């Protein structure tokens, strides 16, 4: 297998390029014969669009699935999860069990969400049930916290009502799609500040589902103390944890960048809340990631040329329940601090080791089962093939128990480090 891997990218980030160069790969342009293309999401749209008629050959790999937006667009993610839950309910799966208030016991991990303007009336009905609640408006297709705002009055979103008379100057089709979710106004606070959790998940195939979780995620803290007070609803420094927003705050510090490692978080929670609830929390986080992937797996175009590294954003509320906020197809590769750079460099390094085995020219027909030694800082999160080998109903049985606490069975290949209790 002579010849070096030829790579292209349209994202000029040093953490990427340094990784390619250190493998001795050769940079080419997209018009030439390439083996590995790290694309932006715009490019993947073009590559796989019907008009392009692009056919990838066996020795070409790209870093996105063609219809990743099923997971990474806020509205589609919610749609898919809702559909998945209904399907499970219909087949009578114990996973879809509900409690006496009609809330899913195991699948309630996305805050109540509606699409606007499509579900406007449904939303109004829900809003009126608890009129003192706060809701968060997010544009479907944007990132980095752009365009997000909080509301607590219907008048603030009149524009999105379907038959609104005031929006006559804007035609229906130009109205940008938004999602509106119940705002988690009781986030878990540390040092009085709100934070969210960024975790990296690599998916090498959807059917069978095989995904890896990067051990070194991080928390992003707001620079301003949290307050649910209505007078501060407009203060994005209180509510939005995106670094793109926080770095413009007065108190932003470039040394630590307002970030904590996940292991710090774990140490803090174990020390102040106890080991059981902390383990339960992390178990639940792993659970919701896997469930979200399972939800989109049936509709995902499981193109064998593709892999994808997602940035999962979770918020933990003050009862230590994790909520899935969104999934990013193109998690930022910009480094805000020195530690950040090291982390992202290693992330790409480990990702490439898994996606492009041995750093050689890929053959997309391979079985996508890398040996344990190359995982680096990744851990197997869920391997459908392995799980099915163990008996798929074991998963259901252990979920049917009470909580995620008791260690149902240890994963065979990782002696002690068990990422989930419900393999």
């Amino acid at each position, binding site marked *: 297998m002579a010849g070096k891997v030829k790579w292209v990218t349209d994202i000029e980030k040093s953490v990427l390029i340094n990784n390619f160069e250190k493998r001795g790969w050769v940079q080419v342009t997209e018009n030439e014969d390439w083996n590995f293309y790290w694309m932006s999401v715009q490019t993947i749209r073009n590559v796989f669009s019907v008009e392009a008629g692009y056919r990838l050959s066996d020795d070409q790999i790209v870093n996105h699935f063609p219809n990743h937006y099923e997971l990474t667009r806020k509205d589609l993610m919610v749609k898919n999860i809702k559909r998945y839950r209904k399907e499970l309910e219909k087949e009578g799966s114990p996973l879809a069990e509900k409690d006496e208030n009609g809330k899913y016991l195991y699948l309630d991990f996305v805050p109540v969400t509606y699409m606007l303007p499509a579900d406007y009336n449904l939303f109004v009905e829900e809003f009126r049930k608890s009129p003192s609640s706060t809701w968060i408006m997010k544009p479907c297709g944007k990132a980095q916290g752009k365009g997000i705002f909080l509301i607590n009055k219907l008048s603030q979103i009149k524009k999105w009502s379907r038959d609104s008379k005031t929006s006559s100057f804007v035609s229906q089709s130009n109205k940008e799609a938004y999602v509106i979710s119940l705002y988690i106004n009781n986030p878990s606070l*540390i*040092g*009085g*500040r709100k934070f969210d959790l960024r975790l990296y998940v690599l998916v090498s195939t959807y059917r069978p589902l095989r995904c890896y979780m990067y051990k070194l995620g991080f928390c992003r*803290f707001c620079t*301003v*103390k949290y307050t649910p007070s209505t007078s501060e609803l407009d203060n994005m420094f209180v509510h939005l944890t995106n670094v793109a927003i926080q770095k413009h705050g*007065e*108190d932003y*510090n470039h*040394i*630590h960048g*307002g*970030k*904590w*490692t996940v*292991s*710090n978080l774990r*140490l*803090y929670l*174990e*020390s*102040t809340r*106890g*080991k059981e609830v*902390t383990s339960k929390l992390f178990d639940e986080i792993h659970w919701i990631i896997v469930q979200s992937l399972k939800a989109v797996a049936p509709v995902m175009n499981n193109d064998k040329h593709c892999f994808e590294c997602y940035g999962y954003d979770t918020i933990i509320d003050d009862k230590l329940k994790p909520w899935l906020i969104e999934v990013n197809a193109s998690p930022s590769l910009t480094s805000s601090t020195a*530690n950040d750079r090291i982390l992202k460099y290693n992330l790409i390094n480990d990702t490439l080791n898994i996606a492009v085995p041995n750093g050689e020219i890929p053959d997309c027909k391979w079985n996508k089962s890398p040996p344990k030694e190359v995982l680096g800082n990744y851990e197997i999160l869920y391997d459908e093939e392995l799980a099915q080998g163990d008996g798929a109903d074991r998963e259901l049985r252990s979920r049917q128990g009470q909580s995620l606490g008791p260690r149902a069975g240890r994963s065979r290949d990782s*002696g*002690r*480090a068990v990422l989930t209790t419900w393999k």
Partner: protein
Amino acid sequence: MLQEESDLSLIIAQIVQKLKGSNLYSQLERQAWASLQRPEIKLESLKEDIKEFFKISGWEKKLQNAVYSELSVFPLPSHPAAPPEHLKEPLVYMRKAQGSWEKRILKSLNSMCTELSIPLARKRPVGEQKELLNKWNEMGTDEPDLSLFRPVYAPKDFLEVLINLRNPNYENGDSLSFRTHLGLIQVPLKVKDIPELKECFVELGLNIGQLGIDDSTQVPPELFENEHVRIGQKEQDSAAAQQYIRQGSPTALRAELWALILNISSQPEDVLYYEQLKTNVIQHDLLVDSLIYKDVKLTASNDDYYFVFEDYLYQVLLCFSRDTSVLSHFAFNSASPPKSYIRGKLGLEEYAVFYPPNGVIPFHGFSMYVAPLCFLYHEPSKLYQIFREMYVRFFFRLHSISSHPSGIVSLCLLFETLLQTYLPQLFYHLREIGAQPLRISFKWMVRAFSGYLATDQLLLLWDRILGYNSLEILAVLAAAVFAFRAVNLMEVTSLAAAEAVLADLSTLKVMPLLQIFLFATVT
């Protein structure tokens, strides 16, 4: 025998005296009175019955813990004719050195005061008080102009003082021999060698389970960890907890265990006391407050682990400065609280006040003593109590000149002696290139490694400080770090290069390092 007995009865009398004034005493009294209602208490055997009741209800254990706590802190019995200064520090030359160091610090503080025309203390106007009260939970966002303030001193200034310490009664002659100490510290204090350290730290031995080693992912938890956790959960006894924690504390139990060992229980009176200190902070502004602000901004705010807790640090340290109960520890601290006089009454004792009220002037890095504790306690008054107790038991020894085995002078000497005796080649090499090892390790020891190690490792280290009631482990760890990086250090040719090799300790695992250095190195 007779001497020991009378020493013992003296100690007992002193402890009883101390505890009589405590809250525990009144609680026990109340309990005793209340117990008279109980059917099992009979008049004929009143004393025994009440004692039995105390034992069963757990009050005896509380009393035991309190006594144990006093014993831990209580200085060793000295000659009945010894004056109080001897309790602080028996050696005259050390006392003198500490005295002149203090004069220097105070001079520096006063001159800063005069230069900036800021009073040492002033009462806040009502408007300012209100503002501060509103901002109490986010003082970190207050950005007063601190550019003109400088820390009163930094660890390296203190090191220079220690280097110049000499015992005037000691003459070691001019000729160099293999016994000559080649390090920076030139005072003859007794320090332990490795065989003695092995005896002292026997629970860190290779054949004994440790948290920090035997809870790593490769080791099945059934071998050690599970049982250790189970034992820890049942612990109610200070002395037993202290013994237990020598093998490390499980993260989930650490907060409770430390509180048990330090004998801290958050009673309503303690919360009230803390609130009272908070009120003092609101009402009066002290110059040291600005020093504290500056220190936090320079150190903890920039730290990857502790930046989150910035506001807690102010809440603890500002109150700490006003806490006069801290003054009592000066009875066994070689340092003395700086005295200041009301304006115009210089020299008149009736007008003397201690400044700051707790007698402790913070230096650069002081806030790092508090920062790691924020990982364990998030309730301000409990955090405060734990820190205060840690300070009066341990931390004060790291910045006062004394001959105590846990004092910084002894730690420095212990470090240098260990290095010179067991890593002579490395020590000699570093000395030759002008990189005396103490110049690098001093700052680690003064801060008890806070800010240099990863937090989980630091907490494992502090577990052992509590467990052995001694700071000697800091010197041993410092030597172990040098031993670990010896190969790289042998290749450097300057102090700066040596500093670079030892700049980043955040990936070190302390327990394996300590174990290897003490028990697995061929000596």
